[in-house]
């Protein structure tokens, strides 16, 4: 087949689409669904800007995912983290710590942090830096991003370190 009918659940909203099979999930999210909170960085799997969460909190690269093969999947983008007008603790921590400069790595970085903290609720600094591998930031030098992750971890644990 050259075209495919698919269903994507993006931030809990159902979308039914006909997509050419050579379209990536990144293209479909940004261009067909206008979800420009998902960023195109390198298109080759090296920068992490296109990171989305699939089926819960598993981070994947949307630039290396064929949309046709994401049929039926539940995808979370950074815009889907907000609940009832309230920012996710990770989003808030990035803002509070000044961990955003140009903002381009931020969606991927925030989603990666969400998935990372789900597996490691009380990480050391070294574990945070290791856990964020695959998401590149050209602006911040990572210092404030690391702090934001630490703050988000503390808040998540209800003040416990």
């Amino acid at each position, binding site marked *: *087949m*050259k075209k*495919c009918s698919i269903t994507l659940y993006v931030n809990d909203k159902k979308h039914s689409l006909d997509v*050419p*099979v*050579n*379209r*990536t999930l*990144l*293209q479909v999210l940004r261009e067909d669904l206008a979800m420009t909170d998902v960023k*195109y960085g*390198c*298109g*080759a*799997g*090296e920068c*992490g800007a296109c*990171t989305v969460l699939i089926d819960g909190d*598993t*981070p*994947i*690269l949307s*630039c*290396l*995912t*064929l949309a*046709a*093969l994401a049929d039926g999947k539940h995808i979370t983008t950074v815009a889907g983290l907000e609940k009832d007008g309230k920012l996710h603790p990770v989003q808030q921590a990035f803002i509070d710590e000044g961990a955003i400069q140009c903002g381009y790595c931020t969606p991927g970085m925030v989603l*990666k942090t969400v*998935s*990372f903290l789900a597996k490691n609720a009380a990480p050391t600094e070294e574990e945070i830096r290791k*856990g964020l*591998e*695959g*998401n590149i930031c050209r602006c911040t030098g990572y210092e404030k991003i690391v702090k934001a992750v630490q703050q988000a971890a503390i808040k998540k644990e209800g003040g416990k370190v």
Partner: protein
Amino acid sequence: MSSRVLPEFEMLIPKGMDEALTMLRDYGERSAVMAGGTDLLVMMGSGFKADFVLSLSRIPDLDYIIDDPGEGLRIGAMATLSQVCESQVIKKKYRALWEAAVQNGSPQTRNMGTVVGNLLRASPSGDCCCAILALGGTVILKGREGTRAVPIDEFWLDYGVTARKTDEIAVEVKLPPVEKGMVSAFKALTRTTLDLAKINAAACFQLSGKKFTKARLAIGAVAPTTIRLKKTETVIEGKEIDDTVLAEIEKAISSEISPIDDVRSTAEYRQKVSGPLVKRVIQAACNGLD
């Protein structure tokens, strides 16, 4: 640089193995078979074209990691590097593969990329390739006529070329059961965490007291495919690990490899570093027995 638009192709999404093999009978010569897609899509973004892409993703039960102490470890075609990272069995018994998986790429690519896919990519810098060559794996190929097993030593024919025929699917890689005293380790030298290896090496051997036996030494990015250091293996067979033997290793290796200059490194660097790298891998494997 990679283009954001992939070349056009027709997609084949079989729901079962029989359907997949029938598709490959008809279109195999014009098809790229896709597991995780982390290599294929990057190649396509850089101009690689195939008329058909056959995805394995809808074939059920290909993502297994099954340990049978009698038969060995079986890793299915769709088992991801993340699954390897999380496998306590692999971490304990097939350490070289675990070490290859945990340092490869990023968490995102590890969630998508597969072990068997790395073998099929047949790049000499493949990390899982290197570990599995040292561990002595076997690739299981399924065709319409039946199943055949190709030892990993015979699997890579040239850069990017494997023993898989165009109407076959690599469904599994099998690692031999672990014998008592068997240890293994893997190391890669990269510029950054996501980089392909400039050079990598893995060792697997029996350690009885301080003596090496049945050593398999694998090294990558120094030849058109990942290779065994067969001469070096015979140099150390039956010997005890000490500084003299480790020095002999460094000397033997340089005559077995043929590195080139490429985007990632130079022949000179690879030549100089290969000996110390293999030495360190062997030392790491010895330490892992504790």
